[in-house]
């Protein structure tokens, strides 16, 4: 029994850590594929994969609610809209877009240098000193490690921050997000009106040339 256990250990640790790595690689690969695709619908397909695996990364980062929101709103909503947009504006079947080689090389060069810049600055920061100021995991409110942030998220959208304030005597209460929640709804309303106006069929001819 012990022998079997030790023999299979690497395999299982691979599964264990590998699931997150799989999402990491899928995200990167699909993002690159979006850039390289020449067909808009294929771009959309790779974008779906990229954003879907980003949702997987959200799950791995203990942001369960966000992961689900990403899947529902982003992948299931926004991207469907994009694909609809592609189909409504397609001027021919399987529309192709050609990028001239020179342009591609230039874009690739600039992209790699930008990535290099970001990788050497952002990704090499020694983050620990800042992380030392850990958020107060208030009593009973599950800290982010447990993946249970849904209730805390909901409370913060109501303007309450029990995760910060509970059991603490803060002079200034933690930032609640009641205002953006309400204001964003007004924004969505305005935007919907605008989008509906623009997408509606023309009701009459354009005014005579200006």
């Amino acid at each position: 029994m012990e022998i079997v256990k030790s023999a299979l250990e690497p395999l299982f640790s691979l599964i264990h850590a590998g699931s997150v790595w799989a999402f990491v690689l899928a995200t990167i690969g699909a993002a690159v594929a979006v850039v390289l695709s020449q067909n808009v619908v294929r771009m959309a397909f790779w974008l779906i994969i990229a954003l879907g695996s980003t949702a997987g990364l959200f799950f791995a980062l203990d942001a369960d609610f966000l992961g689900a929101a990403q899947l529902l709103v982003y992948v299931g909503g926004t991207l469907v809209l994009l694909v609809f947009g592609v189909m409504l504006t397609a001027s021919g079947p399987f529309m192709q877009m050609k990028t001239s080689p020179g342009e591609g090389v230039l874009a690739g060069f600039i992209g790699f240098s930008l990535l290099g810049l970001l990788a050497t600055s952002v990704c090499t920061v020694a983050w620990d000193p800042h992380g030392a100021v850990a958020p107060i995991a208030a009593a009973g409110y599950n800290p982010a490690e447990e993946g249970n942030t849904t209730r805390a998220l909901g409370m913060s959208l109501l303007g309450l921050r029990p995760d910060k304030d509970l059991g603490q005597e803060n002079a200034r209460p933690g930032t609640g997000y009641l205002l953006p929640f309400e204001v964003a709804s007004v924004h969505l309303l305005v935007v919907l009106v605008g989008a509906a106006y623009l997408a509606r069929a023309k009701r009459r001819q354009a005014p005579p040339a200006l």
Partner: protein
Amino acid sequence: MTPLFAAGSIAGFLKEHDFSDAWSSGLAAIVHAFLIINFFAVAPLIYIWLERKVAGRIQDRLGPTRVGGKFGWLQTLADGVKLIQKEDLCPESADSMLFRMAPYLVFVASFGAFIALPWSDGWVAQNLDVGLFFMLAVMSLEVIGVILAGYSSGSKWSLFGGMREAAQVVSYEIPMAICALVPVVVAGTLNMVDIGRMQAGWLTNWLVLHDPFTFLAFWVYFTVATASVKRAPFDLAEAESELVAGFHTEYSGIRWSYFFMAEYGSMFAVSAIATVLFLGGWHLGVPLLEESGLYQTAGGVFIAHLIGLGVFIFKGCALVFVQMWVRWTLPRLRIDQVMTSCLKYLLPISCFLLLGIASWPLAIHCLKGRTVLFGEPLGEKVYRTSQPTIRPVQSARQPGAMHEKKIGERGEGSLSSWRS
């Protein structure tokens, strides 16, 4: 804490016996994946047979009778074998990469929803805190596969069918999510296991009988869910008897069968959600098991859960049966009627139900002086969980802190067990 026949509990069980983290969670994941994929593969076989039988009986004929004995048990299996043998065709004018990928997308989306589905008390692959939201989210991805299938076939019938279907499914998602929120407001959690546990005991604890709004929400939810899995009478986009088969016109062989497996999988998934949200989940409706003392021993608990599993699957299948019954009874709606009934009727109704369920406690409060008729009010529940005495304070982000947690603690079955 009862032992859970789930990833979390398997992992916990193994950890108790000196298995490493990687071992326990990896093995648990494999066991679960195996169980679910088998259910997912076998259920459609039965459903397709059932559908034929139901159709036959409703139309006053016998349905399949030959393959596999008197009732034609093996009819679907024979069909499956036929489909697997068929050539995997890809039309010349199709975008072959997308054409080949689309069925997998649909299949994965439908299959993924089962991750968060509780089969019995705690028998769930991933006890996600946002279980219901996750299921709805994953099932909403199916539509992308449908659009891509329609587009990439390179045929205008497929494209029309795909677009219609996508418009329909995207629209029906909204009232479906809102209706699903109605019992969530009552329960105060998105966790499917918790919602299920709330309905233990007598039939009156089932959320469908909780108040008038949940009662109405159940019917609306079921209607909308039928539409969102593209079943008749809302299946004009692929009405095989009038139009060509919609987005999967060009598909054949095994890829075509993926679409069908996904369709039947989704049928069961939405029915199962309805079961958990409204119909008491795995509970019998009479506290027989609780009274019988089955929960006193570990083995008894297992048997109780096994009975729960049976009850759950029975309820889910019963709802699927209703969907079939409706299909062979009602005539199809026109596509514009499909859209109008969603946007002009079902959506406002579901919004009204959500508003109603939100103000219901207020009304009760005015009449009876408390916010719920029975049980514990949500606000108090939140307040209780936020009391420092209930749970020990977790020391903030100590590496490895979560592995030292006691087995069976809530949230332990969540994704965190295979993290880090």
